[in-house]
C-alpha cells in the first residue's frame, strides 16, 4: 500500500514537472514576450532603452535555459516570481484569485451533480414514457450548448431583463449565481449520461433481478441496489470534469467579468505573463493529479471489491 502510494506520488511529481516544462516551452515559442506586450504594446511611450532596462529588471533578458532553471528553482522553493503584466507577485495573484474560482467550480460541481442526478432519475424512473424519453435526450442538449452563449443569455434574461440577480454586486455570492448555473449545465450533461447509462446497465444486472425475486419493489431496488453501483463509475470521470470546470471557469469568468484563476490564466496567455501562466498550469495539473489520486485512493472505500486482502480461494 505505502509502496504503491509512493509510486503514485512519484508519478504525480513527474507529471507536474512535465506540465511545468511544457508550459515553459510553449511560452518560449510564442512571438514576443510579456515585457514587449506590456511596455511596448501598452502605449506607454517608453524608449527602447527603458524597455531593455525593464526587461533586465525582470530578468527577462537571460537565456532561456537560465530562466527555466531559475523558474524551476523558484517553484521548488515556493517562489512563483513576479507577474510582469500586473506588477504584483504571482503568489499574491493566485491568493486573490484562487478562492473565487474554487467557489465557482465547487458550487458548479455540486449543482452539476444535483442536476445530473435529477435528470438521470427522471430519465430512468420518471412517471411516463414520454417524460423519460425527454429526460434521456436532455443531456445531449445540455452538452450542445456553448457555455459562453448560455452565459450571455442568462445575463440578459435574469440580470438585465428580470433583474433577479446582479452581475456586478459587491459580495461574492450574488455574482456567482449565474456563472455557476452556466458552467454546471455542460458539466452535468456527461455526468447525467453516464448515470443514465449505468442505471440502465445496473438495472438489468442479475443481482437486481435477484433482489426483485426477493420481493423488493422497483423503488427499493433502485435505492438499495442500483444507485450505489451506478454512481461509483461516475467517480472515475471526476478528473476529466475538473478540466471541464477549469475551461468553464475561463469562459464564464470572462463573460461575467469575475476575477478568478480562469480569467487570470486567459489574461496571462494573452499577455504571455510567463510566471503567472506557469503557476496556473502547475495548479491545474496539481488539481487534476490530486483529484485522480484521491479518487483512486477513495474508490476502494466505496467499492469493497477493490479493497485489498481477504480474498477467498477462487
Amino acid at each position: 500500500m505505502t509502496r504503491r502510494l509512493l509510486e503514485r506520488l512519484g508519478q504525480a511529481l513527474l507529471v507536474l514537472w512535465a506540465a511545468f516544462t511544457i508550459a515553459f516551452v510553449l511560452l518560449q515559442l510564442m512571438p514576443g514576450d510579456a515585457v514587449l506586450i506590456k511596455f511596448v504594446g501598452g502605449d506607454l511611450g517608453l524608449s527602447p532603452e527603458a524597455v531593455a532596462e525593464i526587461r533586465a529588471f525582470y530578468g527577462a533578458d537571460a537565456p532561456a535555459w537560465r530562466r527555466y532553471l531559475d523558474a524551476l528553482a523558484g517553484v521548488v522553493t515556493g517562489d512563483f516570481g513576479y507577474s510582469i503584466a500586473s506588477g504584483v507577485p504571482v503568489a499574491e495573484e493566485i491568493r486573490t484569485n484562487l478562492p473565487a474560482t474554487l467557489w465557482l467550480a465547487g458550487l458548479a460541481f455540486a449543482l452539476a451533480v444535483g442536476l445530473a442526478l435529477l435528470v438521470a432519475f427522471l430519465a430512468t424512473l420518471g412517471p411516463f414514457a414520454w417524460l423519460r424519453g425527454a429526460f434521456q435526450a436532455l443531456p445531449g442538449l445540455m452538452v450542445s450548448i456553448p457555455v459562453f452563449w448560455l452565459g450571455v443569455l442568462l445575463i440578459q434574461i435574469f440580470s438585465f431583463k428580470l433583474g433577479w440577480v446582479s452581475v456586478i454586486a459587491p459580495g461574492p455570492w450574488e455574482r456567482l449565481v449565474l456563472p455557476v448555473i452556466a458552467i454546471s449545465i455542460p458539466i452535468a450533461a456527461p455526468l447525467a449520461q453516464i448515470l443514465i447509462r449505468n442505471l440502465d446497465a445496473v438495472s438489468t444486472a442479475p443481482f437486481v433481478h435477484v433482489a426483485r425475486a426477493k420481493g423488493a419493489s422497483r423503488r427499493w431496488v433502485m435505492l438499495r441496489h442500483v444507485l450505489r453501483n451506478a454512481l461509483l463509475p461516475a467517480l472515475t470521470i471526476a478528473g476529466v470534469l475538473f478540466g471541464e470546470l477549469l475551461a468553464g471557469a475561463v469562459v464564464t469568468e470572462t463573460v461575467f467579468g469575475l476575477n478568478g484563476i480562469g480569467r487570470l490564466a486567459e489574461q496571462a496567455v494573452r499577455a504571455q505573463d510567463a510566471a503567472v501562466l506557469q503557476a496556473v498550469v502547475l495548479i491545474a495539473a496539481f488539481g487534476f493529479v490530486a483529484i485522480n489520486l484521491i479518487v483512486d485512493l477513495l474508490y476502494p472505500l466505496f467499492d469493497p471489491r477493490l479493497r485489498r486482502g481477504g480474498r477467498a480461494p477462487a
Partner: protein
Amino acid sequence: MTLNLTRRIFAAASLSAALLASTALLAETPKQGGILVYLEQQPHTVLYPPAGGFYPNGGILNQITDKLTYQNPETLEIEPWIAESWEVNEDATQYAFKLRPGVTFSDGSPLDAAAVVANFDAFGLGDQARNFPVSEVVNNYERGEVLDPLTVRFHFKAPSPGFLQGTSVIGSGLVSLATLGRNYAELGDARLIIGSGPFLVKSQTTGSEVVLSVREDYAWGPKLHPHQGRAPLDGIRYVITPEDGVRIGALLSGQADFVRQIQAYDEKQVTDRGYALYAPSTRGVNNSVVFRPDNPLVADIRVRQALLHATDAKEIVETLFSANYPVATSIIAANAQGYVDLSDKLTYDPELADKLLTEAGWIVGASGLREKDGAVLEFTAYESPPQPQNRATLQLVAQQWGRLGVKLNVLAGDSGSRTQDNLDPEKTPVSPAMVGRADPDVIKSQYHPTNRNVLLQLGGVAEKVKSFRDDRLNGLLEAVAAETDPAKRLALTAEVQNYVIDQAYAIPIFEEPQVFGGAPYLKGVGFEAVGRPSFYGAWLDR
C-alpha cells in the same frame, strides 16, 4: 458647470432636459454618501502618473492625485489648485509656484516643496534605477529648486512654454515620496499609489476591481471648483467589465451608476431610457489609418493618396457610429488646439483613387486585385481592440478598398504578434492609429519617431525599419514643441496637419469621443480637458 465642457450633450431624453439638469445642479446641494459603481472596459496597467494617458489609468489617477494647477474644462484657463500662485519668466525657462499650506498625502506625509520637486524631477528627468520614463508633458526640464517649504522653482534648459498647462494634466499628478521610491514595474499595484486627491485606494483585486474611498479630511480642491471640501461620494468601485453588452446592460438595469465606452449602437438605448450620455471630446488625434512608408507597397505617395480617396469616412461613421463621432476633417479633432479644416483634401473620390493607382502602375489583374510586377496590392492590419468598433471599422475600410481591387486583411492576433508586427513595416504596411491616450502635444507624440512613431520612422523603437525617415515632418514637430509664441505655434501646427495629409501618411476617419453612460440620479460628474472623468463633485441623488 461641468456639463458645458462636453461639446455634444445627450443628457436625459433631450437637450432641454440636459439644460434643466444643469440648472438643477446649480440649485441643488449635493447629497453626501453612497458608493459609485463605475464599469471600466480594461484593467489599469501602471499607475505612475505620467502613464495616466491610458484611459483606464487616468480614470483612477484623476481621483486619487491632485495637480499643481487646474485647467478649467470650460474656459481652458489655468486656475490655482495645489499651487496658489505662480510666476513665469520671460522666455519660459523658469517657473515658480507658491504652494497651498496644509496639504497632506493619504499616508500622512506633507505635500510640500520637497515633495513637488521630487515629483517633477522624476517626471522631467526620469529615473534609470527605477525605470521611470520621462514624462511627455515636461519638456526641456533641468532641475527643481526648493525655495522654502511652500515655494518651488523649476529651471529649464530651453524654453518650455507648455509647462504651465503641463502641470494641470493627469500625467503630472503628485504622489508621495514613498510612491516615488518604488520601481516602475511595481506600480501596477494601485495600493502603492499614495496621492493627495479626494479619494484614496482602499483595495484592489488585480485585473477585476479597484475600490476607492473618500478622504474625509480633504480640503484642497481646485480653488474655483463649484464643489469644495470632502467629496460627496463615500467611495468609488471600479469593476473591470470587458464585455460591452454587460456594461450597457448593467447600467440600464440599475446595477451600475457610470460606465465607460458606450458603443454607438447602444447610445439610443441609453437616451431612450432616460439615462445620461456623456460624450466629451478627447481633443486629440483623430481615429485614423496610418501608413508605414518604409514598406515598398505604400512608399509611393500616389498609392497612399489613392487609398485616402478610396476611404469613405462618411459611410463608416453613418454605418457604425453616431452624431458623437464627427467625420474627421483633419488629423486632429476640430476643438483641438491649432486645428485647421482640411476636408477639401479628404474627399471620398473613387475615380481619383482609380486614376492614381493606375498611374502608379497598379492594374487590376485576373484575380480582381491590383497587381504590379507580379506583386499584389494586399495589406495586412491588426485590429486595435481599445478603439471603438475597430474591427468593424477596418472591415468596412476593407470593403471600400476592395471595390478598387485592393485587399486589406484584418487580423485579430495575439498581443505578442500584434506588438511585434506593428513594429515591422513589412508585416503591417497600414495600421489603425491608436488614440488610447490624450496629450497636449498630440501630433508630435503621435508622429515623432522618438515618441509613438506611428509611421515607423528610422530611429524609434521599431528596429525592423530599413530606411524611411521624414526629416521635414520631424523638424516641424520639434518646432511646434519648442515654439513659445502662441500664434506661431498655431501656424506651425496647421502646417504639420497639411503636411501629413498632403503626404497622405494618415487617413483620418472620425473624431473619437469618450462616451460614458450615467444613471439619471448621478449628478455632478466632471471631465478634464481630454475627456477623463472626475468624481470630485459627483453625487448620487437617491
